[in-house]
């Protein structure tokens, strides 16, 4: 591997490692905190819900955006290949679509659309995963209703640390 490529690979690995670590340290602190309080099940359920919602929404969003892109490719198929000719004596403005059209069908449209759909689906999935408590409230509404009717003294003692638990404990208390 060339030294330049090696440097780029090392820099990319360092950035990815920092991003992953910044995410994992919060997760580890939460895991230890809930485990010490005896609410390890709460942590597992909420993290599981976040991951499940993220995966399902990502898959649905990716499919919808990818299909939309494929329809767009199919609907704009009948375009003649453009030949961009540069004349030294005149200034002609060439736009990006014209340059792309000059490449004809050599552009891997399906791959580009799939990549774009994968990235855009991340935004949709992240937004929905942040609303995990809404989904859990809907799924566990019966259990929440029953537990709210027979709250014990343990719960009221536990609410002193609610600022740490935030939404997670609000649902499961």
């Amino acid at each position, binding site marked *: 591997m060339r030294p330049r490529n090696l440097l780029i690979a090392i820099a990319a690995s360092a950035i990815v490692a920092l991003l992953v670590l910044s995410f994992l340290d919060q997760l580890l602190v939460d895991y230890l905190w809930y485990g010490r309080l005896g609410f390890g099940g709460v942590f597992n359920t909420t993290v599981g819900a976040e991951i499940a919602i993220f995966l399902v929404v990502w898959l649905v969003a990716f499919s919808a955006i990818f*299909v939309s892109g494929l329809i767009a490719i199919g609907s704009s198929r009948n375009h003649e290949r453009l030949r961009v000719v540069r004349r030294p004596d005149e200034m002609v403005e060439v736009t990006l679509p014209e340059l792309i059209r000059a490449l004809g069908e050599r552009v891997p449209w399906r791959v580009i659309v799939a990549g774009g759909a994968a990235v855009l689906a991340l935004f949709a999935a992240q937004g929905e995963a942040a609303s995990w408590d809404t989904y859990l409230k809907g799924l566990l509404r019966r259990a929440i209703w029953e537990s709210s009717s027979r709250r014990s003294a343990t719960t009221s003692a536990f609410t002193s640390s609610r600022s740490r638990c935030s939404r997670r404990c609000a649902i499961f208390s």
Partner: protein
Amino acid sequence: MLIVLSAGMAIAVYWARGALDFKESPPRVSPGAAGHLSVLLGLFFIQRAMSYWLGRFDLLLHTDGVVFGLRYVDRILWQPGLWLLVFLALAAAATCMYNAREIGLRIPVAAFVIVFGAPRSS
């Protein structure tokens, strides 16, 4: 959000492949692109109609400083207003779906202005 992202992807592909040309005024749109974007806009209006319909229930739970719940102005103005927006959004969705056959820009633009221009003027 899903419909907006799908429309964004479709517009980017149409623009890159020359089916949409923003240099001209009004923008030149190929028949295929107009049909596809009309369907997406129709789906968007259906989603808006559902959102307005659910918004009626939100009036019962919202708070405005002193008052919690349904206020007089909500009962007299906003509840019928939201019903009106539901019907407008559904009508706009139907016209957009119809436009998928007719293929033009006027009908979707008019539907968009009617649905989103009405609440601002009120």
